[in-house]
């Protein structure tokens, strides 16, 4: 998972309320293949017209917002299903931070599995941030500083935000669930050492172990079948 400490980037205001995960990544685009291009699928219903032609009036198709790494959003952003794909789509496009008036619960939690920072600001603050951004025609970036819990606007105003300490730490350290578990790796090693004595059968006669023993016994090299495609 990617760390997040500070980010200075273009922010794209998409202030519609209740943008659900099906809008963030439409299902047909999600199931088009085993691994669709999540970034290309982001806001698929809005970003494209007539199949895959960029919709010139959608903000993410208009410079400088084609490079947006921050999204400004309205109420209840990411409501709907539990699909983590919505987070993958935003991050696939390059978005690392969403500043919204409020978030869908599951989406909010999913953000921390991949390294997307969700920031909650009051509706007034989100609107004034958006207004500042839209009043300039150039690519004026804003800065989101998770270390100091501060946003610096285009005009240099500082806005404080709050975030749960534990969640902040996950992002600052780039720790995902696996990273957290692996902090206990020595315990896992010790458990398995003990367990091998206590319950040797769990580790002994498994398919992979038997195949290996067979290979050693017959002096053959283990080769797996070539993948045919």
């Amino acid at each position, binding site marked *: 998972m990617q760390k997040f400490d500070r980010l200075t980037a273009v922010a794209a205001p998409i202030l519609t309320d209740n943008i659900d995960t099906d809008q963030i990544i439409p299902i047909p685009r999600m199931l088009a293949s085993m691994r669709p291009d999540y970034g290309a699928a982001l806001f698929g219903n809005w970003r494209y017209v007539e199949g895959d032609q960029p919709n010139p009036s959608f903000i993410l198709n208009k410079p400088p917002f084609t490079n947006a790494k921050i999204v400004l959003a309205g109420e209840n952003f990411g409501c709907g299903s539990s699909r983590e794909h919505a987070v993958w789509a935003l991050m696939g496009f390059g978005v690392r931070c969403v500043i919204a008036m409020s978030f869908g619960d599951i989406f909010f939690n999913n953000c921390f599995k991949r390294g997307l920072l969700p920031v909650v600001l009051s509706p007034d603050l989100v609107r004034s941030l958006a207004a500042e951004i839209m009043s300039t025609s150039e690519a004026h970036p804003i800065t989101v500083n998770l270390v100091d819990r501060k946003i610096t606007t285009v005009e240099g105003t500082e806005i404080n935000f709050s975030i749960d300490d534990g969640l902040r730490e996950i992002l600052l350290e780039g720790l995902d669930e696996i990273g957290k*578990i692996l902090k206990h790796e020595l315990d896992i090693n010790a458990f398995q050492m003990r367990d091998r004595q206590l*319950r040797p*059968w769990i*580790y002994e006669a498994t*398919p992979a172990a038997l195949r290996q023993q067979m290979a050693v016994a017959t002096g053959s090299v283990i080769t797996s079948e070539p993948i045919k495609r």
Partner: protein
Amino acid sequence: MTPLTAFDKIWNLHVVKELNDGSVLLHIDRHMMHELSSYQGFDGLRGAGRRVRNIELTVGVQEHILSTDPGRNEDSFAPGADFLYTLRQNTQEAGIELVDFRDSRQGIVHVMAPELGIALPGATLVCGDSHTCTVGGIGAVSFGIGSSQVEEVLATQVLPMRKPMRMRVVFDGILQPGVFAKDLILYLIGKIGAGAGTGYAVEYAGPVIQDLPIEGRFTLCNMAIEMGARVGFVAPDDKTIDYVRGRRYAPTGKSWTAAESHWRQLTTDEEAIFDREITVDTTLIGPQVTWGTSPQHVINVDGQVPDPQSISDPETRRNAEQALAYMGLTPGASLIDLPIQNVFIGSCTNSRLDDLRAAAAMIQKRRVAAGVRAMVVPGSTSVKRAAEGEGLDRIFIDAGFEWRESACSMCGAVNADKVGPGERCVSTSNRNFEGRQGPNSRTHLASPAMAAAAAIAGRIVDIRKLGV
């Protein structure tokens, strides 16, 4: 010493570490993977530059998005090809054992894992599939996990878990003729509801369970998830030990002796306390058939589907009305003699040798009724071979059933085997949800014997009236 349930004993043995927040890191002894739900985990590992920690505790198998056509290949069901190749590549790169669909060990993951002795009593086993609880039939603590957990197990061989509450369901009484494990579990879910097991690990116990063959125990445990319980199991006993002994990957020699005496200790202590206890009098249970779109929508075959007007709770009433409308049934109707167009004998619930025997016994040289498509899909390639060894395939084929290769098939319509829109299917699988067997399909869950009898009659029948 505090008296413990069998579940507590197994759980405690697998606690690697207790964490501050009340959860534990639980060691996973066996990680089974299939082609539909494992590649996301490998993608994640690759993205993070991580390796599979214990390849020897991990096994892949191809069985979900797979054609059941005799002579099938990767492209027989085209949309599955990418998934099959990807599992092959992922397991090969990591050095994980793969049971390819051409392998004689192949089968639906929950059928082949215990059949081969990969799943063992007292072990923890996970798979990215909700019916992993099936393997509880031999006293394993087995449960389904999501994509991100697949990745966690691959990388760490443990899972952060909170201990579920304990429930015991005691089955006591006489098992009436024509009543099978499938009827016991459908009846139970009908009584306590599809959500009653949520948050629990369920132990099945009592005289009826003691007498139940291991294959029936698998059926019972398989549907624990249909009442919301992630774990369902039967504590190991003589039957369990006999079942496991001599299996391909079961321990041997000294290891076996040690394992056997260990497993024999994994029973529930006399005084152990459960968070919830339920007793079921099996004498009351007849052959069960579902009428609606949840496994809890179930009645004795000679009963009547409910009349929503008589249900006082508005939410339940609306549910029942919706289910009846979807199923094309009138309130208060009888299911007996309801014409059907499909019969599916298969799935991880009911596709083992005993199931096929029970189904074949109903045929008695008669033929599948005109206008009915009936298929038998053995749960594993070895079940298929064993059935052929007994001549069951001939009985089915001569009667007009399709005799197919092992895979999930019509259970979840993840390959070409589907029930047509508006058509009815008597199915030995586990879910009668809307659209589960194909868009607008209508599923009636029942035992293999009931399904076979329906195929012959072309309608739902009460097997007790057939005098077999």
